[in-house]
């Protein structure tokens, strides 16, 4: 069944590319090519669901022009889950794109690249050998680079963002290629099944793990490899950034899960410690950056870094617990990682799509210039608010379930019998602290994003004139936001579907349920529907009292109830996003290292009368400043020096080619 739908998927995707290239007229192209892309995604959803449920199927083999190399696609359960996720996000993003893609992103190349992007993302989790995986990976990287470049003629910043993105994604490709190369060299074949025969405790396996973690870490946006994320996401068109953030970066998480679950299961404990530390660093730093950023899309990009950090943390915890001989808790941690992936796909798609709607409706991405959008864009506000609920991991949302499972697995990691390894005794409390800080700061971040953009009074004329986007662009984020709550309220169904993946490697069975989640061996059970019922029951007396009181004393509305006694408090006197996070900026001064520049202009002849005060607070990414700037400077210097060997003389180039041929001959002779 899976293979049939994979073929259908491929055909639909190819037709979508042809339609995008061939059809004249932007409207027809959007409807036909966009519609076909939606169908491509839908076929992938079915194929993924079938693979996730464990339906047996024959591998799909595609011959290539190269002799002896063929592409093989046969997703297992883990691959099926990610195929389902990326395809589902693809459906939502393409549907929204039909309404929202205008200009360059709705051009021939725009739609063709989007269809290829989706096909590439689907090929990665479906692949069953290294060559097919890398083919899909490179297709995805190249097509998404083209999509990030779409609006390069409009804004100068797009070019630099695309350059950063292209360099980082090619570095990622090279590292993964090297990692698979090490495994292929050791096992003598390129299929994933043969990689699993490599001894996990050999030096080669550890090299492969490090290379693959670095390669996948770039795609996940793990700190310090995250620099491309806050540049590329904001510059891409809305539906592209939704697909990149909700689906593509998650394939990095798939890569790591593939490595530690399928290719090299039961690896040494230090792998887990590395992943856990990397994840904790990304989660903490990502959410800190997100909390002090006032550009809405940059904020969402940093929050992606945070979410993927949590996923890496959960994967690391699972690996550590596996090594400590606690398979049931390790299974729970792996389940948490997968639930985090599912939840992040739903809420981040909704958040990026609504951020795009805000950008369309107001032309602004800067929270400091927004405000009062709830009254002007009610459906967008609803979708953003609901998705932000999931992003802040509040009860009844999918994010909450995922974090609950993660915390349960972390607090059960060090039993009171004193036989937990000492490294666990330090690492797990730190992990709990980081997860908690992340949860608290993400509440701060998303209350800021929602409260400043959608509540209060408009802070600029553009925000005052905001309007809702077309129908389709309003509905798609609402669907994604509804999924956040569906997954949050009926998590048992999802957890039982994911159960076989987690127990397949660790042993034991996962209970099958619908509305609640039970973690076997952890004495922990959660039924979010009951929590919601409890809250609803508590609402009843409050609502009755409100209605009774409203009948006796109806509310009055006024332009300004009090304003602390101020008569004219303009909209500019409201708190902005920057002022909202000033306390957090001060508290985390050492980590964020902001630079403050205060320029005071005095009135003429007076040291006391001030005419104007200008404050510049810049919060540049310190990882970029301290790590990447010296690196790019070094590369620049090498480039300048390398120019010396190219002086334009044809004689010199002939000598170079002669020398190159000679070296090749010597090497070949030496090997034979």
């Amino acid at each position, binding site marked *: 069944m899976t293979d049939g739908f994979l073929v259908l998927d491929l055909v639909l995707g190819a037709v979508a590319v042809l339609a995008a290239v061939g059809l004249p007229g932007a409207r027809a192209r959007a409807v036909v090519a966009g519609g076909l892309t939606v169908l491509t995604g839908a076929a992938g959803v079915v194929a993924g669901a079938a693979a996730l449920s464990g339906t047996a199927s024959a591998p799909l083999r595609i011959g290539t022009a190269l002799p002896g190399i063929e592409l093989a696609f046969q997703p297992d359960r883990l691959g099926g889950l990610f195929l389902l996720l990326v395809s589902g996000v693809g459906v939502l993003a393409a549907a929204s794109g039909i309404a929202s893609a205008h200009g360059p992103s709705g051009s021939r190349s725009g739609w063709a690249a989007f269809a290829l992007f989706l096909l590439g993302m689907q090929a990665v989790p479906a692949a069953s050998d290294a060559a097919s995986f890398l083919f899909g990976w490179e297709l995805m990287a190249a097509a998404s680079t083209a999509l990030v470049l779409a609006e390069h003629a409009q804004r100068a910043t797009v070019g630099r963002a695309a350059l950063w993105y292209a360099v980082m994604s090619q570095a990622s490709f090279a590292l993964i290629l090297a990692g698979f190369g090490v495994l292929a060299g050791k096992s003598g074949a390129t299929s994933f099944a043969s990689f699993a025969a490599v001894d996990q405790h050999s030096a080669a396996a550890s090299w492969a793990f490090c290379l693959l973690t670095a390669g996948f870490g770039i795609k996940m946006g793990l700190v310090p490899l995250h620099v491309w994320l806050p540049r590329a996401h904001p510059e891409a068109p809305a539906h592209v950034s939704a697909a990149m953030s909700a689906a593509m970066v998650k394939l990095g998480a798939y890569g790591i899960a593939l490595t530690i679950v399928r290719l090299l299961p039961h690896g040494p404990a230090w792998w887990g410690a590395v992943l856990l530390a990397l994840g904790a660093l990304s989660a903490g730093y990502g959410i800190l950056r997100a909390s002090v950023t006032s550009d809405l899309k940059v904020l969402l990009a940093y929050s992606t870094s945070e979410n993927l950090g949590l996923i890496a943390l959960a994967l690391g915890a699972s690996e550590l617990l596996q090594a400590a001989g606690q398979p049931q808790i390790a299974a729970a941690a792996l389940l948490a990682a997968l639930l985090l992936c599912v939840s992040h796909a739903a809420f981040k798609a909704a958040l990026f799509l609504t951020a795009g709607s805000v950008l369309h409706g107001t032309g602004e991405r800067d929270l400091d210039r927004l405000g009062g959008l709830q009254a002007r864009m009610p459906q967008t506000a609803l979708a953003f608010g609901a998705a932000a609920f999931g992003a802040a991991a509040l009860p009844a949302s999918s994010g909450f379930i995922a974090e609950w499972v993660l915390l349960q697995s972390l607090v059960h990691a060090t039993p009171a019998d004193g036989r937990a390894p000492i490294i666990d005794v330090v690492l797990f409390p730190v992990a709990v602290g980081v997860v908690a800080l992340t949860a608290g700061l993400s509440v701060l971040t998303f209350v800021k994003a929602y409260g400043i953009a959608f509540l209060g009074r408009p802070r600029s004329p553009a925000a005052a004139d905001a309007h809702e986007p077309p129908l389709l662009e309003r509905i798609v984020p609402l669907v994604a936001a509804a999924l956040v709550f569906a997954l949050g309220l009926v998590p048992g169904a999802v957890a039982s579907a994911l159960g076989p993946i987690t127990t397949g490697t660790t042993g034991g069975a996962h209970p099958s349920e619908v509305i609640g989640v039970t973690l076997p061996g952890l004495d922990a059970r959660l039924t979010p529907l009951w929590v919601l019922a409890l809250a609803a029951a508590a609402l009843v007396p409050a609502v009755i009292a409100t209605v009774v009181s409203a009948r006796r004393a109806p509310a009055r509305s*006024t332009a300004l*109830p009090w304003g602390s006694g101020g008569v004219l408090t303009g909209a500019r006197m409201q708190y902005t996003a920057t002022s909202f996070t000033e306390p957090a900026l*001060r508290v985390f001064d050492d980590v964020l290292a902001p630079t403050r520049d205060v320029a005071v202009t005095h009135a003429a002849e007076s040291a006391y009368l001030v005419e104007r005060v200008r404050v510049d607070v810049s919060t540049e990414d310190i990882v970029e400043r301290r790590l990447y700037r010296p690196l790019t400077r070094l590369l620049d210097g090498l480039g300048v020096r390398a120019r010396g060997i190219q002086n334009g003389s044809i004689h010199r180039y002939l000598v170079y080619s002669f020398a190159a041929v000679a070296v090749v001959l010597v090497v070949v002779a030496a090997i034979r």
Partner: protein
Amino acid sequence: MSAVLTGILQAIVLLLIAPLFIGVVRTVKARLEGRVGAGVLQPWRDLRKQLRRPPVRVESGGMLLYAAPVVGVATSLALCVLLPLVSRLTIIPADLFVVVSVMLLSAIAPALVGLAGGTAFGGMGASRHLTILALVEPTLLLAVYALSIPTGSSNLSAILGARIDRPALIVSPVGLLALAALVIAVIAEGARLPVDNPSTHLELTMIHEAMTIESSGRDLVWLELGSQLKLTALVALVGNLVLPWGVAAGAGPGLALGVVALAAKTLLLGGVLAVAEVGLAKIRLFRVPELLAGSVVLAFLAVAVSAVVPA
């Protein structure tokens, strides 16, 4: 069925005690400071007076200004039902992580109200409130971690049960460290001295009061009652962790004792809180992180010790 009845009983008891708790704290403080005070029933009278008045709302506030205060008080009420306060039998398992996240939810309602007002002070209060909330979170969850290690479960009823069976757990170094961390977290979360001054009249130092500064009538009642319920429930939780006796094991006649024990513990702790607050001044906002960092260290030590030294 009996679980539902105990839940309703708990909600009613907390609704009665919460304003009284605030009244006791204020009266004890007043007496210690040489004032007469307005009497322990004054919070009740305030709420009743405000409930009769028509609320005045800002025009640009929209639906949120109607809904957020009601949702806020409902989540606080849900928190009162969720915790094992009168009885260890709760409607749904009192998982501490669920408790913490319901608490987060009830803390967001006033912040959104503050931002919806469209003035400077509302935003200021919301900003400070959420910053402190974010910093309290690690302490809370690490304290939960420490409490859950001896029983192997984060279910509060099980934790209370273990404490009744083995009172040594309460005074063990781990128990004391976790409790100290929890108390600091509760004070910060409940906006009490030295983190926030609940009786301040100076807007620039306000945290909780600044968020509700534009609210009036029943909106203000719900916000105030919500925060009173939350504080009282948390104080009662601390009381139950220190003195787990008197909490009924299930439904039945033990509930009467449970109600009396709960009221006694809560009001006693209210007196202790008042005495402590008389001797404390509000610390600067940017010194609060230092206090909270200290509490994180206490909680971390509690976890590390309990994992290494078998209880």
